[in-house]
């Protein structure tokens, strides 16, 4: 579904990604783990076209999107849940979802909204509450719901567990699992390596701008180097 071929990305003169290749197939969860500064967010932003890759290709559903503008990419079936949730805090839950469905027609939005409310009953309870007054976990649900409103083929999650209580993290990861079960392709970028790998079909380990390891989630979990470096084992 999404293929990154030998991506190099620069910030000014500094190269942040040194030839990264990632392959995500339809209907699977792929986790990308790595330490701070490894280039995880840069990789995501390259997929979104800001900054654009200086060499290499990004191919989404057979189409080269390397040099498309961010807004074009975001409308072509990729949705991203940005790091730190970034809900529209002054808007109500329903309005946030509505913003997600900005480019969809009303009927579609009504259907997707019902779907999101089924997925997150909590959001339905709080539909007319201001997003900024909700807890971190609820905001994360809203951010995912808002991304789903764009009717994506693939959803990218940047650190969905950031700053959340363990029990909420489990809930969020359960939901991500159920999204996959419904056929959604998920690209999960996490520092919380253990849970991300447990959930993932396949995983990549990114280190200082290079892919160090790639394997199935379970194999990576069992890998000694990964355990030492990321799992505190």
């Amino acid at each position, binding site marked *: 579904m999404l293929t990154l071929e030998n991506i190099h990305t620069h910030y000014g003169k500094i190269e942040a990604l040194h030839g990264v290749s990632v392959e995500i197939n339809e209907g699977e969860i792929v986790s990308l783990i790595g330490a701070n500064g490894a280039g995880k967010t840069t990789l995501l932003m390259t997929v*979104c076209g*800001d900054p654009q890759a200086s060499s290499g290709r990004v191919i989404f559903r057979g189409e080269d999107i390397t040099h498309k503008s961010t807004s074009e990419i*975001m*409308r072509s079936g990729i949705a*991203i849940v940005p790091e730190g949730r970034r809900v*529209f805090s002054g808007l*109500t839950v*329903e309005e946030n979802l509505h*913003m997600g469905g900005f480019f969809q027609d009303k009927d579609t*939005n009504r259907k997707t909204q019902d779907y999101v409310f089924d997925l997150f009953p909590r959001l339905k309870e709080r539909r007319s509450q201001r997003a900024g007054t909700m807890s971190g976990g609820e905001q994360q649900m809203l951010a995912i719901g808002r991304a789903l409103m764009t009717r994506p083929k693939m959803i990218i999650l940047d650190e969905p567990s950031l700053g959340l209580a363990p029990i909420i993290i489990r809930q969020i990861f359960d939901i991500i699992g159920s999204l996959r079960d419904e056929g959604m392709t998920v690209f999960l970028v996490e520092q919380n390596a253990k849970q991300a790998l447990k959930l993932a079909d396949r995983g990549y380990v990114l280190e200082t701008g290079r892919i160090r390891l790639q394997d199935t989630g379970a194999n990576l979990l069992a890998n000694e180097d990964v355990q030492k470096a990321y799992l505190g084992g």
Partner: protein
Amino acid sequence: MVAQNIKHALFCAVITLIISYPILGLDLIAEGIQIKLSGADTSTYIGIAAAVLIVFLFQLFRPAITGSLSAIGAANPLRDRKPLPQDKRVRLERAALILIVIGALLWPFFASRGSVDLATLVLIYIMLGLGLNVVVGLAGLLDLGYVAFYAVGAYTFALLSQYYDISFWVALPLGALLAAAFGFLLGFPVLRLRGDYLAIVTLGFGEIIRILLNNLTSLTGGPNGVGGIPDPTLFGMEFGRRIKTEGNTSFHEVFNIPYNSDHKVIFLYLIALLLAVVTLVVIRRLVRMPVGRSWEALREDEIAARSLGMSRTGVKLSAFTIGAFFAGFAGTVFASKQGFISPESFVFLESAIILAIVVLGGMGSQLGVILAAIAVTVLPELAREFSEYRMLIFGAAMVLMMIWRPQGLLPMSRVHIQLKQE
């Protein structure tokens, strides 16, 4: 605690003395070629002493005073009032706006010429406030050079009428479109900027336009300005005593009524009213349309807005362009009202006043902007005796507003949009 209070109060009193004595208590008198230093008269010394004493006492008993002030605030019955339900509030605001418009339509026929003239100015400021409200209040882009678009509108009409004899009604859309084009142009360099940086660039843009107008002497007449700007006509009827353009008729002759110079003032007022209402209605519609919602998304969170596929370029450019368009409207009316314009009418202070209108009214709130435009324009006229202290009072009012109503006179009440349930 008490000792500390006394120390603090003493300190403040000494500062007051140090500042006020040399300024008020000493006079320089020129005697021939010599300058003599002399003391002021006794009453000034008493005044200074009184001021020092007041500062001392105020600082000494400050906790008690601020405590009683907040008690007054607590007694305000409106303080704990619950917000109205949304549909009721929307209806109330609409009713208020309709009442204002109807009142404004009838009013000039009873009012004096001077007040109608002033009201025209108020309407121009309402247009400017509503336009800037799009950029600052709705899209969240701080624009300190908004007066540039106003100037573009005014100069478009002035120059077109001077060189090509173009009438008000033709110049009106041209001025607005040209201003919009300038807004579009300004949009490009500032696409990547936000907050303070955006404010500085827009400030610079405002100055560039003014300085250009000042120095392109061959085209704009420079500091001498452009005069002889024609009045608007009503279907080819002129409002002057004698017809200026051939082929036109004269209003008082067509209707066979005695000539009255008030007709022209009232007519101009009605044009301004019409345009202000157009501005109001168009922007009210836009807010509810996708473009308005995208402005809101951009203001709330740019990254989130972009993650949903909104184009930063498109959203920002549309806000700048539409805001500038209405400034062009206002500029054309202004040029026509004054009959003469020069770069002096478009200094930074104008931008600041328009921005003050938006902030005082409550960012994003249209009714608030209208009330603030009235207040900012009419109050200085009423308080003519204090004209020397105009900016002082203005500043004090701003400070007090920010303390008591930081959200503005009438904070923006967002319209909640819901999908209709089937």
